[in-house]
């Protein structure tokens, strides 16, 4: 066992925190929330500009704030929080000291400097190039430099995570295999390393191009490699928030995976195939063959989608099994009706899971189909989809986890519990309407990243149908609701951490106890679940999902068959 490492045990959850890891988790989580606050303010002004009746900002400010909103949310908020989740899953869950805390602090500093540098570059103007910064449109050099520094810092964080796994194994801090949640976090870390490498491969030359050392960057090459960073970073989120779903099911219900083999196998499919999906952004590009597009956009025969469908069943399935074990066995859904809907840790996680599957998952497969992509490419449908995956899926899952971390990690009681109880509903359901109406507007052809769909002052304006304006109005209203929900999250979190009532617990000591294997459940004691039908309610829900999926998918083929012939 390590010398000089200090640990404390959280009395309620029994989790053991290493002091260095604890400080790092706090720093990363707090930095994440600060960028969430910034990104949230930007979200509000962007949405109020796209709401035609309000049309708040001028064109230059709209494009500037949209660039900052994209990077602050999709990159800075989420990756800061993910680094905290990685440290939690390695150090806290495995009861191990964190590897090389000093390097972890260096990584944090680089991330923070990078994020600030890029933000300053954007707000100075002349870098309103959107998150994607497609060449040959150029930003000022600090824009790229900040992203590169951030990426290097995040990479150090991933290595600290992997190093901690090595230490935990070497020092035998746990029995048997790592927990499923740690396995999922490892998946996220592996995807993150691939993602960050792709980002470095394209952003370093682009930085050199911006300072004049390289003369030409091929725009198609840029797109191909940049999306290895841009899309894959959202795949880190998928792996991370699925791990968080499993963690919350375990924390709230004591749920265990229906089977370790299936859930871990599904994570393995993510590692192997999820990254191929960066091809989704190239489906309407010239110069890339259909064979390449079909192979990659389908994550090799949709094996990664299959993995998500498996998690979508096993996470609620594990909750159902746990609830039935507690006696909620009436009918198909007593286990769900009697779930703690007033506990934001659970309600947020469940709203995240349903929204991710029904809204984000189905739309993602539709738009990731080679031919169907043509009828939504670059329309508002695209941000509609990824707000369902990244905001409802990832951000809401992280918010739910925060309500657990405030007492456990920050040792504070959650302030304003009444507000906190309603927060996931307001934020989640606001985002449901937001994502749906954005997709609706996209189906009607409304372009993304567009300041004025009225085309004022042009000689040949296009008149969008009234329904498109209605959709954009609803986008604006639901965005305001969701931003209020997000604001409540930040208020509760910040207030709890600064002024919340302290939770008393044991002090720090060098005492470290080994993590024991889970007790075998009754089902296993009877020789395994073969032949049993342990989660019929979840299975029925899954069939509803499949029906919605199939209907929506084929409706879009029908729609495609009615447009111009293209070949």
């Amino acid at each position, binding site marked *: 066992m390590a010398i000089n490492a200090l640990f404390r045990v959280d009395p309620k959850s029994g989790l053991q925190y290493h002091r260095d890891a604890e400080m790092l988790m706090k720093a990363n989580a707090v930095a994440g929330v600060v960028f969430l606050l910034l990104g949230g303010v930007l979200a509000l002004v962007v949405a109020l500009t796209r709401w035609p009746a309000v049309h708040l900002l001028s064109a230059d400010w709209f494009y500037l704030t949209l660039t900052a909103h994209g990077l602050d949310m999709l990159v800075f908020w989420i990756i800061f929080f993910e680094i905290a989740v990685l440290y939690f899953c390695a150090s806290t869950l495995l009861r191990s000291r964190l590897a090389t805390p000093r390097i972890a602090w260096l990584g944090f500093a680089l991330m923070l400097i990078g994020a600030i540098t890029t933000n300053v570059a954007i707000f100075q103007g002349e870098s309103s190039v959107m998150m994607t910064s497609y060449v*040959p449109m150029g930003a000022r050099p600090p824009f790229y430099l900040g992203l590169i520094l951030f990426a290097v810092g995040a990479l150090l964080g991933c290595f600290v995570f992997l190093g901690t796994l090595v230490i935990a194994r070497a020092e035998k801090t746990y029995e048997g295999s790592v927990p499923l949640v740690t396995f999922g976090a490892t998946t996220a870390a592996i995807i993150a390393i691939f993602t960050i490498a792709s980002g470095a491969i394209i952003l370093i030359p682009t930085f050199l191009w911006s300072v004049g050392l390289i003369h030409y960057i*091929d725009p198609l090459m840029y797109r191909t490699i940049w999306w290895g960073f841009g899309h894959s970073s959202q795949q880190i989120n998928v792996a991370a928030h699925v791990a968080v779903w499993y963690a919350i099911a375990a924390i709230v219900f004591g749920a265990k995976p229906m089977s*370790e083999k299936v859930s871990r196998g599904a994570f393995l499919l993510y590692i192997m195939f999820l990254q191929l999906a960066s091809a989704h952004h190239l489906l309407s590009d010239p110069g890339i063959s259909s064979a390449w597009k079909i192979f990659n956009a389908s994550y090799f025969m949709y094996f990664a989608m299959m993995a998500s469908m498996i998690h979508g069943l096993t996470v609620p399935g594990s909750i159902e099994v746990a609830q039935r074990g507690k006696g909620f066995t009436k009918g198909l859904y007593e286990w769900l009706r009697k779930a703690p809907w007033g506990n934001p840790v659970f309600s947020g996680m469940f709203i995240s899971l349903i929204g991710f599957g029904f809204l984000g998952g189905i739309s993602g497969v539709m738009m990731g189909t080679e031919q169907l992509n043509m009828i939504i490419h670059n329309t508002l449908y695209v941000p509609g989809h990824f707000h369902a995956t990244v905001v409802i899926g990832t951000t809401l899952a992280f918010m739910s986890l925060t309500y657990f971390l405030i007492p456990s990690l920050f040792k504070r009681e959650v302030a304003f519990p009444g507000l906190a109880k309603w927060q996931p509903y307001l934020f989640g359901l606001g985002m449901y309407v937001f994502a749906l109406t954005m997709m609706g507007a996209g189906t009607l052809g409304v372009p993304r990243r567009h300041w004025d769909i009225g085309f004022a002052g042009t000689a040949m304006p296009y008149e969008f149908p009234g329904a498109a304006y209605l959709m954009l109005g609803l986008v604006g209203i639901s965005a305001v609701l969701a931003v209020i929900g997000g604001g409540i999250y930040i208020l509760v979190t910040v207030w709890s951490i600064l002024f919340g009532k302290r939770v008393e617990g044991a002090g720090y000591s060098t005492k470290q106890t080994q993590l024991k294997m889970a007790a075998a459940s009754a089902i296993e004691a009877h020789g395994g679940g073969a032949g049993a039908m342990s989660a019929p309610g979840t299975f029925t829900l899954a069939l509803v999902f499949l029906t919605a999926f199939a209907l929506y998918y084929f409706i879009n083929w029908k729609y495609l068959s009615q447009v111009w012939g293209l070949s």
Partner: protein
Amino acid sequence: MSAILPPSKRIWWKQPLDKIELTWIAIAFVWSLLLFFMMPYWHVFGKQNLSNEAYRISAENYQKKTQEVVDKYTVRDETDQKIPVVHPPPGADVYMIARLWQWWPILELEKDQSYRLHLSAMDYQHGFSLQPSNINLQVVPGYEMVITVTPNKTGTYSVVCNEYCGIGHHTMVSRLYVVDKK
């Protein structure tokens, strides 16, 4: 708490599967294959597919080729900027330029006739978005995409830019006419 604890058995990969998990995996697998084979199926039997034809080209050369077609087939011009309206014969190669912040020229096509439409960008990336059909293609500088289009309805269409291309992005909108056969 077990998803956050080590599995209860060291040899966890031999634990038998639950029946509903197994059924769901089988369903998901079949569904995955179906989704996958829909794409090649549509390439063979569907009528809306992207072509695989594309070339590298410089902005100057593309401009020159477009000008030749415009000189040959212009029937009138429109707007204060006198943008030519090009009515090519069915089956012809037609060119469209995307540049800051304009689509050039305006095309007039005949219903149920096929044309080889060429698209390229002169400066930044642009997005060809045909409304209200909602057909959307990425237009990349340095690359010339060739796609055979067959309009199936007459009317006045619009071409909107849906790839962000700078401060005037929202002013990049043009027309496209589809008329009955003459």
